[in-house]
């Protein structure tokens, strides 16, 4: 298998593993942002898809969190944490996904080091792929929940 295909396969395996977390954060987003702020989720997805740097995505999340109080709203269903949506998302991307990146780049999987610039660039791109995949899943769940909510109201 060529290196690109190996990377895609590993990212897809991780996407299966973090699906549950993406759903939780998608539910949190639906609770906090609700349907009227749908464009902010679309923007998040667009930024993730087009960003050259993971930190462009983090900066966007920070800006939205600072600007809109609903991005700072905790999720009552999450008894373990009182963190708002923006903070929870930022934490997951910055820490949990970083750990997954380290796992798939480790010697037993893709075996990509962290010493040379070339290796670091490769890791940067894989990190972006993981973030994109996670945000796609999150936004799908958000859309599903808000549409479910509006259908319930219509009924």
């Amino acid at each position, binding site marked *: 298998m060529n290196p690109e295909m190996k990377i895609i396969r590993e990212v897809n395996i991780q996407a299966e593993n973090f699906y549950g977390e993406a759903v939780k954060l998608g539910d949190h987003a639906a609770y906090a942002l609700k349907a009227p702020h749908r464009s902010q989720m679309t923007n998040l997805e667009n930024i993730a898809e087009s960003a050259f740097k993971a930190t462009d995505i983090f900066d966007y999340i*920070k800006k939205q969190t*600072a600007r809109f109080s609903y991005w700072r709203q905790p999720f009552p269903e999450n008894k373990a944490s009182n963190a708002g949506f923006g903070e929870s998302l930022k934490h997951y991307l910055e820490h949990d996904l970083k750990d997954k990146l380290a796992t798939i780049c480790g010697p037993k999987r893709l075996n990509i080091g962290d010493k040379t610039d070339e290796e670091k660039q490769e890791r940067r791109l894989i990190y972006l792929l993981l973030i994109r995949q996670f945000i796609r899943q999150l936004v799908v769940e958000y859309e599903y929940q808000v549409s479910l909510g509006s259908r319930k109201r219509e009924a």
Partner: protein
Amino acid sequence: MLSAAQLQKIWLLSDTVLYPEAVSFMRKLVQDQDCDPLPASQVAGLLSIAESMKYDDLHRFVLHQRDRNWPPSKRDIKTFYTALEEALSLMQRKRLKEEFHLVTGEQGRSVSEARQELDELMALLAREFIQHLAAENGLLAAQLDDERKKQRMSRR
């Protein structure tokens, strides 16, 4: 004109070096030194200059803001610009060549070409750093605001 390799290196530096440094920079000022976050009008001005691409203009702006005679109520703004000027100067004097290894140093280039490359590199690095500062600054300002609201509510 910077090469694709230089741009990619800057993106990498932005993610791995400048972002964590910008977060520490703001937290040190706001959480350790009890400074107020930078007001939104200052952030907007700084971002707009940083996006203008010319490093000289940005540096002049930072120096001007640092050296202004701020009233005591706005002394934190002076503290911010003093720290920012130090960070940018260190980046330009030392880190650009010795740590970031971004300068190509091609043979046969004129002094003005070499200077232009340095200017473009610094403009991009400074812009990345300032964008990260602005995002963290906003987050800290919102957190402080929420805390103050909670305190006011609990006093009632």
